[in-house]
């Protein structure tokens, strides 16, 4: 297992270099110029422009710039935002917990509903439950996310007043960031009602964000289960006189989990990159909106650093997925 882990870790190196290179190159390939954007409508004189270019080092050859950036990254220096003048590192970690909290809640909802739905659909193949669940999944998958979010806000916030419209917590509550996770911090603060407020703020965005992964997981679980259910070892399990619950839920599901974990990993990766639409609609202070804003501002260090950190997060998720494969099916560990 240790060797398996090390070999997987080794693949981090080329991926890391690749991501650094791509994020560095892509933002520069975009038309536009950070200095012009910074200057805004007032514009900038050619002398001042030249001065700034020199100050930021953009007059040097591109390879030298990349080398500077790379050595900085390896020393843990991701640079400073042009706009806020704060280190990228600090900005990222101020916002990332919000994204992480939302992603975790969303993926928990997606897994908790998606896997049972897929199993039920597979074991009721062609019957009512199968059709009902799979058409619901298809609707969920194809629905525009912003429209779905607005619909939920209108019903649950607007008409029923069950949930707040936006933000992470009610303005009544104020406490210091400890973990950055509102659910945990609100509990730690000990303020009455703070936790409930955090939960009620989290419900709608989580549901919205969970919708697509939920549909994907349900469909993937169903097809993986159908494949596994025709395997010889399922017949063996039935021949032992095991209950359908044990045959489907243990013998079949465990084997079907490999492709399902793959899509869960992919979904988590997407979620960690920030859900721009969901974060915008619910005014959720996550990294999705931060990244998009910095692309528009041509804030090179933020885009580069943000992409890199998101990529690392996604790589970690992939590593976890790979380790889970080995845990689920010991045969994979041997390869």
């Amino acid at each position, binding site marked *: 297992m240790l060797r398996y882990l090390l070999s997987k870790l080794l693949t981090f190196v080329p991926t890391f270099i690749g991501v650094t290179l791509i994020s560095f190159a892509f933002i520069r390939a975009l038309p536009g110029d950070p200095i012009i954007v910074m200057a805004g409508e007032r514009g900038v004189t050619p002398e001042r422009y030249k001065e700034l270019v020199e100050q930021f080092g953009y007059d040097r050859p591109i390879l030298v710039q990349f080398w500077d950036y790379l050595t900085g990254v390896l020393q843990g220096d991701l640079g400073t935002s042009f706009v806020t003048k704060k280190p990228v590192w600090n900005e990222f970690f101020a916002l990332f917990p919000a994204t992480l909290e939302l992603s975790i809640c969303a993926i928990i909802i997606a897994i908790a509903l998606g896997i049972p739905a897929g199993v039920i659909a597979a074991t009721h193949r062609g019957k009512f439950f199968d059709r009902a669940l799979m058409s619901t999944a298809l609707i969920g998958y194809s629905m525009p996310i912003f429209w779905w979010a607005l619909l939920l806000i209108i019903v649950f916030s607007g008409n029923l007043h069950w949930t707040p419209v936006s933000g992470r917590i009610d303005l009544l509550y104020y406490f210091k960031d400890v973990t950055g996770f509102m659910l945990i911090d609100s509990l730690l603060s000990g303020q009455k009602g703070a936790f409930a407020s955090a939960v009620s703020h989290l419900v709608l965005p989580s549901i919205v964000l969970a919708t697509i992964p939920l549909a994907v997981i349900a469909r993937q679980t169903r097809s993986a289960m159908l494949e596994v259910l025709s*395997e*010889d*070892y399922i*017949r*063996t*399990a*039935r*021949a*032992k*006189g*095991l*209950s359908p619950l044990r045959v489907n839920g243990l*013998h079949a599901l*465990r*084997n079907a989990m490999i492709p399902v974990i793959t899509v869960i990993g992919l979904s988590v990766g997407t979620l960690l990159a920030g859900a721009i639409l969901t974060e915008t609609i619910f005014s959720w202070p996550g990294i999705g909106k931060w990244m998009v804003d910095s692309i528009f501002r041509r804030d090179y260090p933020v885009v580069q650093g943000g992409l890199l950190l998101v990529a690392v997060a996604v790589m970690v998720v992939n590593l976890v997925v790979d380790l889970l494969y080995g845990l*689920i*099916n*010991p*045969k994979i560990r*041997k390869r």
Partner: protein
Amino acid sequence: MALLSIRNLSVEFATAAGPFRAVDGVDLTVDQGDVLAIVGESGSGKSVSMLAMMGLLPWTATITADEMSFDGRDIRRLSARERRKVIGRDMAMIFQEPMSSLNPCFTVGFQIKEALRQHLNLDRAQRHARAIELMDLVGIPAPEKRLSAFPHQLSGGMSQRVMIAMALACKPRLLIADEPTTALDVTIQAQILDLLSDLQKETGMALILITHDMGVVAETAQRVQVQYAGQKVEEQPVEGLFATPHHPYTAALLAALPERATTRRLPTIPGVVPGQYDRPAGCLFAPRCAKATEICHSTRAPVQGAELGLARCHHPVTQPEEATQ
């Protein structure tokens, strides 16, 4: 009273092109301690009839029978839950592909103990001890160590031994072995058959051996039932069947054995088993039968008396020499 008694069992599969009859009016009787071989080509309904009895067929199958009883209990009337108490406990089955019949995600020990846990009131330590005992019984060396092995770490022969251990876990009264050696090497085949034979004698359980290998039949079985295209065409004790087969199909099968060949070229049975669309109106074997006459093509064959091996034939073979022609 017979341990297992099946009368007029039919199994039909609903396919996109209409119903397909895989088993057609099969009778079968097994007594305690019996060794019955069911022989036939691929597609003759051997496995399907046994899977039907175990309740392991997919939902597309429709099973009808005049009688289906095990140990005096009507299997058709058991609820799914009651039937699950019988299968895996009193009635167990092993399959053709041992490597794919074990779940790759669980250890061998887990899979054997699971059968014990399902049916017997044993505690953890007792289950562990019994699992080791079973592994030892089926001839797996270092059983204690092998309990924690995963299926991919075992050879085909070892996997089949594990399957047998699992099937024997609750001391079944009937073991159904569905082509247990087809996927194995020749040397391993003999070992597994010997093992099954020995275990059968030791435990006194009944054994149904599904096979298409006449050599296996001769070595292991007491009684043979020959199936063709979903029908039982003949049933005899082993000695009688090999000496005087009464159905032309049995005769042709035996004549095709290399050991019996008298010519340079092995005799074969021309044609193939009829499928869903080319099922003959008369005797199902008529299109491939050397002795077929007018009546064979037009009228379904009658079942002859016990003295003629219950042969389903218009012109049963009666003389030993006639069979070897």
